[in-house]
């Protein structure tokens, strides 16, 4: 149980947190035919869009209600209606997901109520599902915004249906990549179960070249499948942040299983045990082999990770997944996270600062950390401190393939351990006499003959 520290300062230096609306937009993008819509000033959308484009290396269809000086004062209901109208006209989306911003939440409008009323009136909007999540920037970060969006989708679109044999709901956390989701879905399918994945970035933001140009998300969870989630035999939610969403499905009669992490031997074991119980099926041979390979990887990697002092700056659920994995290998963590959640309190360390990269940089220097685990913004800090930097979380804008990094399941854990060990190995320590306080050898002994002229 970690003690959460709130640094006593007014200044935030080098933000670690990513805003909640962005998290909501990302979740919405995991729905097929979606366009996320920020209810705020157009800058909120522009910053978030650039942020996502740099991470995903994809065009991101994100729109804005474009609040102006008038609507900022008088309210933005009309802006939403006009936005939906324009979006429908231009891109024919099946789904519009609205996320509010600090601007409208500070005003305290009843956007949800206005929206309901408007949708009742605008029957011509009926063939586009519209969902609204309240995600003020001043509360929570990426993981919370993502979770609020998923809850909003469930509230709006999941209905009671008859039981569907062998169907399970999978609610991936905000920081799961396309590769993570594929890995988990593969494990579920290997037990003969059929997952409905909400949301599913592994189909929409996995980086694929399509045959045409659309103004909305290309792939993702189908609305028809979302409607059936109330009939699933279980919900598997990944990350504490997804617990409220799982609870909503539980209210519809679907038992909730929340896995705080799917990284690390014990965490995956727990997941597999659940799949065994849910399916009653034999454990596939490939999974047994994957576990044997992870076990071996732990042996090889522990020489490099045991005792390693890691500076970790991640959102709570991702931090919990990767942090517990490293701690279980004997690493010593110095942690900063973004929000004071249950996952943050369970980080395997005495003290966790809820802060920014500035806090992490000071702490890493204090603790003599040897490796940095955070998103791409940490690169300047890594350079200043001379640390190897393993990139995790959002954003990762200075590398390609952020969505291809699998750190989930037995295989993903193996890859992650190798990744960390290799980052250590990529900064080899070359011993010098000075390191031990030894004087240099007399230059008298050095070879000084000029090179031969003949040959």
């Amino acid at each position, binding site marked *: 149980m970690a003690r959460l520290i709130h640094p006593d300062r007014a200044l935030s230096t080098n933000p670690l947190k990513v805003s909640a609306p962005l998290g909501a937009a990302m979740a919405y993008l995991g729905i097929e035919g979606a366009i996320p819509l920020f209810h705020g000033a157009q800058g909120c959308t522009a910053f978030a869009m650039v942020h996502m484009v740099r991470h995903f290396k994809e065009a991101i269809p994100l*729109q804005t209600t474009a609040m*102006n000086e008038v609507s900022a004062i008088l309210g933005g209901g009309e802006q939403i209606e006009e936005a939906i109208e*324009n979006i429908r006209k231009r891109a024919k989306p099946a789904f519009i997901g609205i996320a509010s911003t600090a601007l409208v939440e500070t005003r305290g409008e009843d956007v949800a109520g206005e929206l309901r009323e408007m949708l009742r009136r605008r029957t011509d909007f009926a063939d586009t599902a519209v969902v609204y999540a309240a995600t003020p*920037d001043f509360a929570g970060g990426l993981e919370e915004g993502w979770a609020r969006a998923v809850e909003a989708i469930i509230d709006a679109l999941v209905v009671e249906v008859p039981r569907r044999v062998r169907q399970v709901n999978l609610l991936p956390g905000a920081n799961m990549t396309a590769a993570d989701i594929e890995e988990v879905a593969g494990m579920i399918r290997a037990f003969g179960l059929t997952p409905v994945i909400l949301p599913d970035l592994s189909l929409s933001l996995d980086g694929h070249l399509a045959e045409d140009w659309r103004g909305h998300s290309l792939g993702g969870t189908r609305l028809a499948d979302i409607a059936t989630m109330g009939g699933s035999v279980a919900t598997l939610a990944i990350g504490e942040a997804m617990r409220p969403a799982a609870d909503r499905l539980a209210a519809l009669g679907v038992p909730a299983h929340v896995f705080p992490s799917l990284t690390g031997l014990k965490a995956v074991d727990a997941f597999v045990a659940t799949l065994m119980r849910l399916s009653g099926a034999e454990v596939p041979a490939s999974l047994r082999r994957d576990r044997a390979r992870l076990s071996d990887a732990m042996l090889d990697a522990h020489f490099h990770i045991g005792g390693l002092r890691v500076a970790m700056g991640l959102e709570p659920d991702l931090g919990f997944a990767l942090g517990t994995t490293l701690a279980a290998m004997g690493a010593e963590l110095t942690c900063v996270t973004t929000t004071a959640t249950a996952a943050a309190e369970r980080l395997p360390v005495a003290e966790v600062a809820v802060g920014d990269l500035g806090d992490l940089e000071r702490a890493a220097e204090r603790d003599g950390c040897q490796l940095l685990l955070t998103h791409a913004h940490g690169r300047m800090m890594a350079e200043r401190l001379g640390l190897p930097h393993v990139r995790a979380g959002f954003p990762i804008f200075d590398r390609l393939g952020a969505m291809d990094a699998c750190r989930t399941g037995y295989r993903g854990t193996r890859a992650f351990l190798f990744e960390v060990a290799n980052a250590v190995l990529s900064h080899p320590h070359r011993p010098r006499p000075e390191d031990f306080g030894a004087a240099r050898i007399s230059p008298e002994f050095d070879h000084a003959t000029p090179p031969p002229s003949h040959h």
Partner: protein
Amino acid sequence: MSEALKQKIQDAFHEPGCATNAAKPEAERKKGCAKQLTPGAAAGGCAFDGAMIALQPITDVAHLVHAPLACWGNGWDNRGSASSGSELYRKGFTTDLTELDIVMGNGEKKLYRAIREVIAQENPAAVFVYATCVTALIGDDIGAVCKAATERFGRPVIPVNVPGYVGSKNLGNKLGVDALVEHVVGTMEPAEPGLTDINIIGDFNLSGELWQVKPLLDRLGIRILGSISGDARYAQVAMMHRARVTMLVCSHAFMAIARKLEERHGIPWFEGSFYGISDTSAALRTLCRMLVERGAPADLLPRCEALIAEEEARTRAELAPLRPRVGGRRVLLYTGGHKTWSVVSALQELGIEVVGTSMRKATDGDRGRVTEIMGTDAHMYENMAPAEMYRLLREARADVLMSGGRSQFVALKARVPWIDVNQEKHEPYAGYMGMVELVRAIDRAVNNPMWADLREPAPWEVPACEAPDAPFVLASVPGSKADFEDC
């Protein structure tokens, strides 16, 4: 919104010298430059974004954003302005207002503390404080806080009042620069002002573009004294009033400061560009002429001509072997302002065919130049919807798209080469040497063997029948506003 801010916004848009405004019909001109944003069909940054773009390149300043997290948490560390000195401008500082701060009305107090902390922590030359939507909405008086902090901490603390909802990036550019005029320019004096000291305003030194030009100035003995550009120090802003000439690089947003420097301090200014061979030469000529007019030694002119002759000859020699590799290629240009024609002429000189050039943010003068250079106005177009652009490119009616980052994926997804010629680009294309780099980039892009592989069908696809190319007339393409906002 305070009345003061409203007035400031009005003023910002009543820019008599603004070429964009001047290019508009009389009726529209009265509305100022403020573009009405369309909900659900808008793109581009807000006023805060614009102010930050203009001011963040000042390197030794702590840029402190008074806002909830998103404004700067999603925005910091995303530009490529290079510095040869302080790296302070690359750090992200914000008050990260929480719900509690807002409910309790703690905004101003927190800002004051944050200013104190950032000065203690970073020892900046100055602190620029940016107010955004929420802090404007809750009525924080950042002007008062900055004033108090300046007095208390003995360090310039400059308020930049730019809530995002007041308008676009362009407006923010203007408001940001206004803050400099109001609070910074004229507050420091150079040790030895010289007759060849100049101001350069509005070059962001992306990937070092200013340094591609600086050796030319160095050789002519021209010193960049004042600067609101990449690699600028705070002192260079504060000393602008002592320069002899101001060069405004490619940005109408900065016109106000040039004009005020002229009005208040008698410094003449001109708009110029270091993009392309002829523009570079023209800018150098104008600079030298204006400096001589203000008293610099007359031999500056022949020295400038000699330099231009030498550099142009060398550049053309370097370009010669590249010509056959790029000649005959068809470029679709999607940029704005003066680049609409300056790049066209540079490309035509290399035997590259420009199949279209967008006329966004272009003046009547720009239009005339394009018609003159291309011999027709058939290749001019306004905005283009991504789907349209995709279709054009997919049908291979152009060999390469040159544009800003927003249309990047339209080209790539259409399997067509793309070259970044706007702010996010990773290579410097300024001055003579930059032109050679640009042509190398075009060569690398269009001649990459990857395109042929990508365009071939998958093993499981029947090869598509190849329809003969329809003639490419851009005028027939319906435009759509606000799909991109590149410049």
